[in-house]
């Protein structure tokens, strides 16, 4: 799942793109970073988290279980990507 040319993997890119478009008005100043605190700053809330998880399901075929919907796994883009990869590995998808 790694794009060797950019060094960015598909999972991270899918999550980043979604958050930029849906939560940050397209992120015109390119402010979103892998460690931007998404929950602490309210970028993700309980409403758009559901949309993000649906998007991950549709685009990556990974269903994130409720046990992963927590402050640690949703902390920033890096944490979400690693949770998605862990779920994918567990379920073999």
């Amino acid at each position, binding site marked *: 799942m790694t794009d060797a040319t950019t060094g960015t993997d598909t999972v991270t890119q899918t999550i980043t793109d979604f958050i930029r478009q849906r939560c940050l008005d397209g992120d*015109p100043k390119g402010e979103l970073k892998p460690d931007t605190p998404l929950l602490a700053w309210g970028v993700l809330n309980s409403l758009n988290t559901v949309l993000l998880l649906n998007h991950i399901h549709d685009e990556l075929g990974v269903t994130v279980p*409720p046990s992963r919907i927590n402050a640690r796994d949703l902390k920033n883009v890096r944490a979400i990507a690693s949770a998605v990869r862990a779920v994918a590995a567990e379920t073999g998808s």
Partner: protein
Amino acid sequence: MTLHRIVRDAAKTHGDRLAVAADDGTLTYRELDARADAVARSLRALGVSRGDRVVLWADKSAAMITAMQAVLRLGAAYVPADGSAPEHRVAVLARDCAAKAVLTTRDRTGPLRASLGTGVSVAELATSPDGAQEAADARIDEPAAPDDLAYILYTSGSTGAPKGVCISHRNALAFVGWAVDELAAGPDDRFSNHAPLNFDLSVLDLYGAFAVGASVHLVAAELAYAPAQLAEFLHSEQITIWYSVPSALTLMIREGGLLDRPAPRRLRAVLFAGEPFPVTHVRALAGWTRARLLNLYGPTETNVCTFHEVRPTDLERDRPVPIGVACSGDQVWARRADGGVCGPGEEGELVADGPTVMRGYWGREPQRGPYPTGDVVRVLDDGRFDYVGRRDHMVKVRGHRVELGDVEAALLAHPAVTEAVVVVVGSGIEARLVAVVVPAHGHDLGPLELRRHCAARLPRYLVADEFRTRSHLPRTRNGKADRAALAGDLAVTPAP
């Protein structure tokens, strides 16, 4: 009778029954009683005594509920702050109410201690206090008078300073007593708790359950708007009495498949409050369950002062169901502009008087006499009230009270912001808080920087959903920012 006796009494008659079910564990009444005494002892060791305030800052949990009871047992008042609230806001609350102590999670004690300095004790919210077993011979039961303060709920204030609504034991018990009677609640009931603990809806869930030895089941903060999980929660926890803002029910219906399964057999009452509930969804619920459907109304300052049980005729109307008639021992009326009392067909400001009306805002003059709610209502032919709207700049987003001035004041505190206007775009579940900001000359501001700035100062529900920057704002003829034009413009312009 005072609020803390409720759990004490339930522990005597219903000791082995389930009191609280949460992510961090379950508590029987006996356990809750013993742990509350243990936490009260540690609070007393910190110097907390009768008449003090204690801020409780964490996500909702069995430990939080225990701490609330512990504070009351000392004759003190608790001040709940949501786990998602930023440290800056919590420090503002703690200073505003001159708190004796703050209890929070371990990771937050250090930073908060640093920002509050000496004079306020900051301690860890114990998850399993030591010495709970000694509780039986070390009861803590400070006397409290009915008019003593039981808790303070902070709400959004128009000038940027949060307002602390002071609720006495008498205030709270008047509402709880009414609710228990109206619902004919009993020990077999299972109450949901959807609202955060700093939101007055939670008072019914907790104390309604405790008053009759029933259980309360906490919905974790992260799942509060997760549609499928909420619908599943209703089934898996075998909830008998559900209470939430309409937004949560709308989501469960629209996106959680709530109506696709038969209604849980034991569900017997669905209560909603905090904002108008589109009647289409009320119709859908009425067709799905035989449970009673109740619309509750009241600002934090009065708790629930009117209610209405949905009748078949209400479903034939094309507007939200009425907010109904007075309850909780209160008197309510609609006041005309000339001060007179509105008759059928007339509109006026709803005024409430009676045992649930708050003592006042912390640090300000006590509330004397009837409380004007700021809400405009219409008197129906049968004397019931229909909700019409607000008189001022206060809006509701997902059931939360938002003073637009509060959000604007936070934005204007940013050094690179010269002008800021916050508007609500959309309605009901689609309502979004949109901040429009004019950056100072030569400054480049992105939405994430504005969001970071606000999130450090405001509780989560006051952080705008969207941030936009503009080089100038539309103006009305008298030079004020034209909010209506801005809202209309934003409603038709998609995000860039």
